[in-house]
């Protein structure tokens, strides 16, 4: 039985891209417990997306190891991929397909079929207030509606772990609220969430723990409130973030 504290375990993770001068991820060690909402925060180019890509099996690490629920992506790729759901930063959907067609397609890509898939799709569309738009093409949707469909496409198979890369970027308050409420809801039902964002308030309110990384290195990890308290002069997560990563502009 897997230790729930080490549900996701990252050990000595290094990633250096070909021809790069520095490591994108540099000796990163992290453990994420089952049932956590874990925020991975950092400025642009800090190594958040690279870490997430390694966890999803999209790219290989230069050194170190990653295990999810005790399984290595290298030796058990299909089992690990069945455990995880991924919501990318891009709206990775087909504009010319309707919301329902998109969701049925991505559900089938996880091996779901028949009535259970159709029910899942209908339920999630209802949950996100998109039932009346289900037969409309995605290309005509607003940014917020696309984000919601983008999220549903990653959770149709009801994964144990959900990876989200900037799930609320570029959308209005209402859509953001619906998405965050939903994430809390599925977390209470047992889904572990690893999430990256630039919205510090959002992360402070949502995450049970956070890690701040910069230049691929771990700068701090812990419960947001405790981290803020332990750093003098910080009143909120944004202050902490700026203190740890500096105020210099990044690309």
């Amino acid at each position, binding site marked *: 039985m897997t230790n729930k504290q080490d549900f996701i375990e990252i050990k000595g993770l290094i990633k250096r891209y070909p021809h790069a001068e520095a490591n994108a991820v540099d000796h990163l060690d992290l453990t994420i417990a089952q049932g956590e909402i874990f925020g991975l925060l950092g400025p642009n180019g800090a190594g958040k997306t690279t870490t997430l890509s390694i966890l999803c*099996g999209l790219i290989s690490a230069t050194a170190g190891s990653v295990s999810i629920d005790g399984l290595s992506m290298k030796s058990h790729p299909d089992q690990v991929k069945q455990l995880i759901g991924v919501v990318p930063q*891009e709206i990775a959907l087909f504009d010319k397909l309707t919301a329902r*067609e998109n969701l049925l*397609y*991505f559900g089938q890509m*996880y*091996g779901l*079929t028949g009535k259970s898939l159709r029910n899942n799709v209908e339920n999630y569309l209802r949950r996100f207030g998109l039932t009346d738009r289900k037969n409309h093409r995605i290309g005509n949707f607003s940014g917020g509606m696309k984000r919601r469909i983008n999220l549903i496409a990653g959770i149709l198979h009801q994964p144990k772990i959900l990876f989200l890369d900037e799930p609320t970027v570029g959308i209005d308050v209402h859509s953001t609220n619906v998405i965050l409420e939903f994430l809390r809801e599925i977390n209470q039902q047992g889904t572990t969430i690893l999430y990256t964002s630039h919205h510090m308030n959002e992360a402070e309110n949502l995450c049970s723990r956070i890690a701040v990384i910069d230049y691929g290195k771990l700068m701090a990890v812990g419960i947001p409130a405790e981290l803020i308290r332990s750093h003098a002069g910080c009143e909120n997560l944004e202050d902490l973030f700026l203190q740890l990563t500096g105020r210099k502009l990044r690309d």
Partner: protein
Amino acid sequence: MWLFLIKYTASTYKETLLLLRDRAGLAMLFIMPAALVMIMTLLQDSTFKVLEEKKLSVLVVNQDADTFGINIVDGLKQSKFFHVIDSLNGKVLTESALREQVAAGDYQIGIVVRPNATRNIRENMKYNMLQQLPDEHSDVFGSDSIALSPPASIEVFFDPVTKNSFKQAIISALREYSSLVEAKVMFGVYSGVFEDMLGIKLKQQGMSTRMVNINEQYASTDEHLAVPNSVQHNVPAWAVFAMFFVVIPLAGNLIKERESGVSLRLRTMPGSDLAMIMGKVTTYFMVILSQAILMLLIGIYLLPLLGLPQLKPGHHYLALFVLTATISLAATGYGILIGTIAGSQEQSAIFGSISVVILAAIGGVWIPVFMMSGVMQVVTKLSPLNWSLNGYYDIFLRNANLMDILPNLTALFLFFVTCVSIGWWVNTHKNQPV
């Protein structure tokens, strides 16, 4: 396996929906190849007909005014290929006017028969005969001595843009007429000698019967063989060319998925990427197959309405279908390869289209393989368009069956497998987990 089948079926359905939703794109996939086949066949047919039906205007100045010159001009006039012009604006053509007209590009060919051509031929015939006769008959042509004369001369002027085939046609015609006149003169000279030495006067000067008859036929054991014509050559050639052009929408589709993040998202899901690739292959295979059938039907039913010969698809329909299907697979595989190795839509569009043009050029779509240089005739065997084209020619013109075209089918299928394998490898190579 079950997951593979689910993913494959879903991908095929999704690709079909995407194609059907893009009506303009879908229409282009059928209208453009159909237009290409019709236009190219009509153009090529016109080129073939230039020599056969549209007479080529030839300027002629005859400075000989004797048997040789008269026969050359009459021969050209009686030919179905040439329209002889010996005067312009009511004035008899001169050599300088002829050269000006050809140099200006108003006419492509000008012929000048030099003075004394007939006399020189006749004198040389006599001279040659005297060399052969015993000395006691050295006065057979009278007491005057006979010397070797310069050969009869014809000058042919060409416009620099004249096609080589036209040049060859006129030179061949002139050689033929010259030979006829030479024979006629020789016969006359020999007749005179014959009469002089034996005292027998021949009733006519020349030969009244043709001694050699040349029959044109196509080598085949099949009496129902289709006659080769521009349609039999051009419809399959341009159909194959158009079929391979599907690389552009197919590669674009792959790159669009990559750029939108869909491809990355799909790679985070369990199972093989091959299911998604095969879904695309299946959908585009059906499109290309439909394109090809449409183009063949155009050759059979539409081109005759435009005054062109009808495409005769041979008698082995199974072989024709299997070949068309295998070419469709090969073209799809090539699209998958381009789509996976190209870095952007621009790269795939440029590399895809130019590479198909190159493969078509070396494959014999524009220039028949037998007209290529030795090296190019070897290189042409590397082009899948050549394997495709030869397969069609075998079925249409040589009545080949399925077994006869097996080498072409094998090469095309291996090309498809190789392209998809490389594409799949490239696609998954970047997906190495920790």
